[in-house]
């Protein structure tokens, strides 16, 4: 923001001079400025923006944030509890974890790991680990944090969130799962946005028979219980398909059903705008219908569309997680929040190893954040209202 920080329009009535100043500023402010002022008042939406940005940072830097290969399993180290990261050693900042020493339980002969306070495994920043490509382009093997050491020794154990039943590191898996789950949401919402704007736009702009047909189709789709249908479609995806193909089919299935709400919003906007002068002008100049829709109408209610899109994301995240949890969405070796939660589906296992339930936290937080962000955007999209 290049403009100097103005007084928020809501908190004005302190000084008489300030009132006129600020009022003038409000009356000459461009629309995006008004939206920002309105949005800024919604504290939860601000916080959610930060959270959403954080989530997408994880999406971009998942490989960097993970410190071990999410698929590297070792049966010996299954279901290890999360390790506590000690930040200070002797009053000095030097983060470490206590080394894990494996012993046999004399009763069950199961291998159990106990933290040995005498072994301190120092955490290092930007250590070398497994190789990956940053942004899919730059090959590197640096990670944010990690520990040295190789093999099953006490000094190479770093399990911030414990391990799952196959001894894979939960933290690293969570990073990749976040990447997949949020990307599915983003791609699905992009497709349904296109469908929604196109069909809702045609419906609202053309009216008449087109409108009736599209509206009835929307009503029918909305009155069908979608999860059984999704399950049916998802189950028909052949079992031998690779992860990428499954990913794209899933996004298609999700967007097939989530465009209706977007279409409804777009249609409502079109109905209220289609008799405005600038639309008539464009028609007279001879613009094609698609051009009028995408060049003239859409930009004028873009903010509403963005808000509606944000509000559509949580539903997709919920459905992706649910389907993957059942084993019908993304499936191993693919990763997603739902796939991770699958390992907690057995209550007995979850009761002994509650850290398997940890992916529930990002699911809930992400859904909440998108909801609040969407609410804030929706309020801000119409900055002239009360």
């Amino acid at each position, binding site marked *: 923001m290049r403009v100097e920080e103005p007084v928020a329009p809501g908190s004005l009535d302190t000084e008489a001079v300030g009132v006129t100043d600020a009022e003038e500023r409000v009356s000459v402010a461009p629309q995006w400025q008004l939206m920002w002022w309105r949005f800024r008042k919604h504290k939860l939406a601000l916080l959610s923006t930060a959270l959403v940005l954080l989530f997408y940072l994880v999406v971009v830097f998942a490989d960097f944030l993970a410190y071990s290969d999410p698929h590297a399993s070792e049966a010996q180290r299954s279901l290890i509890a999360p390790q506590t990261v000690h930040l200070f050693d002797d009053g000095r900042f030097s983060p470490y974890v206590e080394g894990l020493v494996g012993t046999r339980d004399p009763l069950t002969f199961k291998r159990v790991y106990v933290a040995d306070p005498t072994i301190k495994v120092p955490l290092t920043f930007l250590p070398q680990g497994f190789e990956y490509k940053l942004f899919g382009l730059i090959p590197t093997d640096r990670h944010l944090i990690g520990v040295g050491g190789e093999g099953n020794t006490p000094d190479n154990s770093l399990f911030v969130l414990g391990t799952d039943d196959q001894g894979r590191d939960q933290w690293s898996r969570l990073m990749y799962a976040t990447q997949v789950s949020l990307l599915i949401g983003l791609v699905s919402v992009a497709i349904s946005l296109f469908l929604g704007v196109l069909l809702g736009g045609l419906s609202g702009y053309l009216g008449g028979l087109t409108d009736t047909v599209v509206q009835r189709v929307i009503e029918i789709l909305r*009155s069908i219980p979608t999860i059984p*249908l999704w399950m049916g479609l998802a189950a028909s995806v052949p079992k031998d398909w690779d992860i990428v193909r499954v990913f794209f089919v899933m996004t298609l299935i999700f967007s097939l059903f989530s465009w209706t709400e977007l279409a409804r919003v777009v249609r409502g906007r079109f109905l209220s705008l289609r008799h405005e002068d600038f639309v008539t002008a464009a028609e007279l100049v001879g613009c094609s219908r698609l051009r009028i829709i995408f060049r003239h109408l859409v930009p004028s209610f873009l903010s509403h569309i963005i808000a509606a899109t944000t509000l559509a994301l949580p539903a997709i995240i919920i459905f992706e997680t649910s389907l993957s949890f059942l084993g019908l969405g993304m499936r191993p070796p693919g990763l997603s929040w739902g796939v991770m939660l699958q390992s907690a589906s057995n209550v007995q296992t979850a009761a002994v190893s*509650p850290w398997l339930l940890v992916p529930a936290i990002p699911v809930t937080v992400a859904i909440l954040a998108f909801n609040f962000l969407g609410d804030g955007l929706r309020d801000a999209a119409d900055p002239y209202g009360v």
Partner: protein
Amino acid sequence: MVSFMVRRLVLAVFTVIAISMLSFLIIHLPPGDFVTTYVANQAANGGSVSEQEAANLRAQYGLDQPVYVQYLKWVGLIARGNFGVAMEYQLPVAQVIGDRLWLTVAVSVAALIFTWLVALPIGIYSAVRQNSILDYLFTFIGFIGLAIPNFLLALLVLYFGFKYFNANIGGLFKPEFADAPWSLAKFQDLLGHMPIPAIVLGMAATAAQIRIMRANLLDEKAKPYVVSARVRGLPEYRVILKYPVRVALNPFASTIGYTLPYIVSGSVIVSIVLSLPTVGPLLFKALIALDMFLAGTIILMLGVLTVIGTLISDLLLMWIDPRIRLEG
């Protein structure tokens, strides 16, 4: 009123047709036709199907004919109550589904009742005591309810039940009643098991309905007729309950149409997690085994039930809102 009813009925008929087409599509999506799968399944189980039998089956379901003929045949069979054979069970689909369909209805209705019983008073309270501590508390719980997918809620309930009460709280019946014929004792057992699925299933819908009711009532409360009723000295509870609540109820009632598909959808997943004997786990198993006749029938039945429920809610709406009753 007649035109409203007719419009709704026509829409319902079209919805049922759409659902039947989608179910049919799902039956036919997996590669190979169902007889191929059937033969393979029989062979895997040590049985055998002769060429003649296979050909007969193909002819019965018209698998050698174009898709639209197959669809019409399938609809014809269903209209006569023949839903095909569930391969895994070697029993007619209708028999496999049996009681499960009604238990699904029972669970969904229980969730709907829970939603209403809880959302209505809380919504009214939150609107009347806007910005009070309890209002904030309910709003907070409501947001959490919206944000936790219901399979996750079911999982957490199971987890805490197991961890702190050492009880498995899934299911709808005690083991001794599971296969018993219906009796009063079994019915009581069912009622006793109902609250947890109903709450888990109704949680998200309840949260949404509280927000709707609260927003509607806040809009109504600010209108002049409420002020004038208050000025005339009506007791506060009448000022609120008699007029604005009734007006605010209309959008509330009209959202049942969207709540019901949502709850029925959710019931499938929650039933799988809580192992309820509804059609949910059956559908899941059928899909995993690619037993598409069973799966398609269940999807069709769930869809049709939802349409019927939505129609009932429309009738209810007509009864509540005179504007719809009297128009046209």
